[in-house]
């Protein structure tokens, strides 16, 4: 055999390596950026964590709270996962120059290809409905200010990519079917084509050579499209198809109302309440010398913990949080989705800065607070947990709001003045109002 016969195989392996290599590079960057966050306690019932991941990410239980969007999403999601079995075959065929290597499975192969086709059709329908919801019905949560520009384009682009991939898949099968019926070399009779058999007549009367060109083009474009999509993820809200799994695994296990008690504060408060504390006793008591944190709360992305940062990369920008937020519903600037998007944007900016400066972050005079998230947004939150409850992938926008409030109050003393009065009252009278603590029991006799 001549060497030239192997050109497609070599080309394929090179493209595959390039696509996967670039993807691996992005994954590494992603992990590095998430690790810029601070440590946080991940102790907790592991069985529960596995269960949450299985139910919420794999089982999509929180998606179907909104039945229409939920059902459509399940279709696209299942389609995506199952049709990827086909990609495995494509890769093997591409490397070894085989054609439909799995066809030895016989009847089961027919069943597989048949179900892929039906799923592909369902995906096309779902994607079209999604597009209509975003662009014609204009559902409110897709039109908030934070969705202008790239987020809107990103959302539509994904739909177009999915549509094109599905059409390529069906075209590939339709021409394959034609070729099979012509008895072309290499195209053995296999597979069942419940959907593409209706597309096949479009290619009636074409020569075998033309059909092979179309079939091969569709095959190549399909796999190239998939490699492109893989590498598009990092720049897109679509990263959630990967991160939804770790994110739901590390989702909050404690009651929603339980906010963490800052350990660094506990140590200081203990010292303050007991002036006789032996300054050397405290560290040993808590099991070793604890590092003094740089600051309380968060004013920039790296002050947040790594789970909060992973949350930001996982956000699907679906806006379910924002549409349930009482502040947003009453016209306040606060949008929990924007909190997540801003955090990701800032983290990306920090990551690029690090890339540019050979692995070191050079201060750029910007931060998450004020440059991305305004104080007005932070102070509008009622800590009601509606956003946390609504999120289909266990993101906690409220925890970022709280971290930033902590910075404002404890590092900057920059609470709204009414809140400063309230806190002054607590310090002086043990109540948020200026009443005398001695009068606490007066209510009994009034």
């Amino acid at each position, binding site marked *: 055999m001549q060497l030239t016969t192997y050109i497609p195989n070599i080309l394929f392996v090179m493209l595959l390596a390039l696509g996967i290599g670039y993807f691996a590079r992005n994954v590494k960057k992603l992990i590095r950026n998430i690790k810029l966050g601070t440590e946080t306690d991940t102790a907790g019932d592991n069985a529960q964590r596995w269960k949450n991941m299985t139910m919420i990410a794999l089982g999509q239980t929180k998606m179907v709270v909104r039945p229409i969007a939920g059902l459509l999403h399940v279709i696209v999601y299942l389609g995506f996962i199952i049709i990827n079995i086909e990609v495995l075959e494509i890769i093997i065929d591409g490397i070894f120059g085989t054609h439909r290597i799995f066809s030895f499975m016989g009847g089961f192969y027919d069943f597989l290809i048949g179900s892929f086709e039906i799923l592909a059709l369902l995906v096309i329908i779902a994607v079209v409905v999604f597009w209509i919801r975003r662009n014609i019905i204009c559902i409110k949560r897709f039109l908030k200010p934070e969705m202008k520009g790239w987020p809107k384009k990103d959302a539509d682009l994904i739909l177009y990519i999915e549509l094109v991939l599905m059409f390529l898949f069906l075209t590939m099968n339709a021409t394959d079917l034609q070729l099979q019926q012509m008895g072309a070399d290499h195209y053995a009779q296999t597979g069942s084509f419940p959907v593409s058999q209706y597309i096949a007549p479009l290619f009636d009367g074409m020569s075998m050579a033309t059909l092979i060109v179309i079939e091969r083009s569709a095959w190549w474009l399909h796999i190239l499209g998939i490699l492109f999509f893989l590498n598009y993820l990092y720049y897109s809200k679509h990263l959630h198809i990967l991160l939804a799994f770790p994110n739901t695994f590390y989702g909050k296990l*404690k*009651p*929603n*109302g*339980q*906010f963490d*008690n800052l350990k660094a*504060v*506990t140590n*200081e*408060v203990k010292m303050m*309440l007991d002036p006789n504390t032996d300054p050397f006793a405290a560290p040993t008591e808590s099991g070793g010398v604890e590092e003094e944190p740089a600051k309380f709360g968060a004013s920039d992305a790296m002050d947040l913990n790594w789970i909060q940062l992973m949350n930001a990369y996982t956000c699907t920008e679906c806006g379910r949080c924002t549409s*349930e937020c*009482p502040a947003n*519903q*009453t*016209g*306040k*600037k*606060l949008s929990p989705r924007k909190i997540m998007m801003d955090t990701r944007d800032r983290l990306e900016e920090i990551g690029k800065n690090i890339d540019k400066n050979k692995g070191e972050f050079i201060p750029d005079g910007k931060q998450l607070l004020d440059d991305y998230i305004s104080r*007005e947004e932070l*102070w*509008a*939150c*009622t*800590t*009601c*947990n*509606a956003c*946390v*409850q609504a999120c289909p992938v266990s993101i906690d926008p409220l925890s970022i709001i*709280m971290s*930033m*409030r*902590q910075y*404002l*109050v*404890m590092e900057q003393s920059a*609470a*709204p003045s*009414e*809140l400063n009065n*309230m*806190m002054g009252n*607590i*310090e002086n009278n*043990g*109540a*948020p*109002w200026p*009443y005398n*603590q001695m*009068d*606490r*029991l*007066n*209510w*009994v*006799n*009034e």
Partner: protein
Amino acid sequence: MGEGLKVKTMQDFMAEGTQPEILFWVGSAGSYDDRAKKISRAFVKILNKANVDFAVLGSEESCTGDVAKRAGNEFLFQMQAMMNIEVLNGYEIQRIVTCDPHSFNTLKNEYPSLGGKYEVVHHTQYINELIENGRLSLEGKAYQGKRITFHDPCYLGRANKVYDAPRAVLQQTNAELVEMKRHKKTALCCGAGGAQMFKEPEKGDMDINVLRTKDALETNPNIIATGCPYCNTMMTDGIKAHEKEDKVSVLDVAELIANSI
């Protein structure tokens, strides 16, 4: 108005050398806010009627620090918490009941890691328990034929998944319970949480409490039932904004029960 209420402090119990069954954590609102004080008295009326041997801390109680924590002041919160824990542990308190979901949440969830471990129940859970144990029986005439809708407090509902107790208790009044479109997990906040109670809202096109009372009014109720002193204030103001204060009243679950015994 308060005649006949029997309220003993922990100091009284100490002097007698006995322990109460339960400590009633009154909370700052329940102690000082004119509207919330009525709720405290209604709850004591229930406790007295059921012959519960309970105590309050009186002047030894201090703000839980919850509102400071939600405002971002972790220092002040932990100071308050540790002072309260010292008092509570000093009296060897085991069980606490409170009418305020914010106190309920912080005592139950946030005090333990600071050294304060107690069994904490919300008053709607406790009243339910009294009824189930046969210690409290209701006449159930006062609200017969009335429509009541219950507003889930965020810190009882979403924060701690307590949805059934208040409803079970309200059922006992023989009133007709009607649910708002968004209730339980999807209930809209009244607008008071996260320290909003103590400040003006940010610029917007509506106040949250007005939106929430709109939800409530859509059920055409005679009474909006609440389980939180702050929700109570917010809903009362919301009803006024809708100019419905003649037709709809806002009452705590404890008040509805106190009027039914």
